């Protein structure tokens, strides 16, 4: 009986360590790693696009770009590990990269909204300043012109004709 048990355990262990099983596990870890790397690439590019939007809206993105570089380093390590067949390492680096990428994306979108809000405020105040400035210029110019015209007329009307004697 104990021999039979031993044989069954041996057969089960052999089945798990046989090459199709190991190859299957290897293939599945490759698929997991490939999917993790692809996902991390997607997250990183969308985070970068969000940073570009924030930058376009006028936000200072230096800190976010530095964090993107951190994530980029991890993605590069994931890619290299994947090419070398270290699928567990690739998946680990890709996951870390994805985490940073997600954080950066959220922060970038917040920063973009803030920058857009600030830009709208800035535009509003600039427009008010411009309109006020133009109104003052038009008013001052109008009053100045009236004053000038009055003075001009007074000067022209005040001119007396002089009689010049013709002595020749």
């Amino acid at each position, binding site marked *: 009986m104990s021999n039979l048990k031993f044989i069954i355990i041996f057969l089960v262990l052999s089945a798990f360590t046989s090459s199709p099983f190991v190859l299957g596990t290897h293939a599945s870890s490759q698929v997991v790693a490939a999917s993790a790397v692809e996902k991390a690439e997607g997250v990183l590019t969308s985070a970068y*696009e969000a940073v570009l939007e924030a*930058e376009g809206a006028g936000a200072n993105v230096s800190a976010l770009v530095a964090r993107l*570089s951190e994530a980029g380093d991890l993605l*590069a390590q994931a890619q*290299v590990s994947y090419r070398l067949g270290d699928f567990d390492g690739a998946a680990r680096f890709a996951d870390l990269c994805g985490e940073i990428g997600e954080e950066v994306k959220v922060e970038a979108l917040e920063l973009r909204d803030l920058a857009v809000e600030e830009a709208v405020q800035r535009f509003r105040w*600039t427009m008010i300043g411009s309109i006020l400035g133009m109104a003052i210029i038009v008013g001052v110019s109008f009053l100045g012109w009236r004053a*000038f015209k009055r003075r001009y007329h007074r000067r022209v009307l005040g001119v007396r004709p002089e009689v010049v004697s013709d002595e020749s």
Partner: protein
Amino acid sequence: MNLEEYRTVFAVTTLGLILMAAFPTLSLVVPFPRSAERFSELWVLGPNHMAEDYPFNVRVGEEYSVFVGVGNHMGSSSYYVLYVKLRNQTQPLPNATASEPSPLPPLYEFRAFVVDGETWEAPLTFEFLEVSRFENSCLVRRVMINDVVFWVDSSSSWDSENNGFYYQLFFELWLYDVTLRGFRFHNRFVGIWLNVTAS
């Protein structure tokens, strides 16, 4: 000057002042074209951070270092990939005229995000781990780049003109294109020649 002429001077001056007052608002609405040329820089420096003392005669088991850098003048933050490749004298380099990268697979890679007007730089160490030499050929089996070991299996023939077995370690710059939503070869590459004869 008569009154009509004075009126014209007044009107023109007022119009000029109105335009000046409106300029800050106009500058926020009207996009003014930027005339600056957009480009990226790519460089390799020697171990002393200077454009000299580049590794040339390399030996097996000895570590060599260089610095690679990228400068961004693209008008906005850019996302770069820098591929590190190794080739022998007959394998193709990127084609700058056709904007085509080298078909050789990359060994190592860097990914860098650079703010407009700023630069990025990274150290790169490399070591030839296994090299076999025959009569007129040399086979590089393994190299280590930044502590990562790569199987290369690249052979080189004896260069009788320059007396040596030559390999080139080169760097290709790729740029993320937002409209393509992917990377494209940025038509820039630099490299250093390595003579593995002494190894």
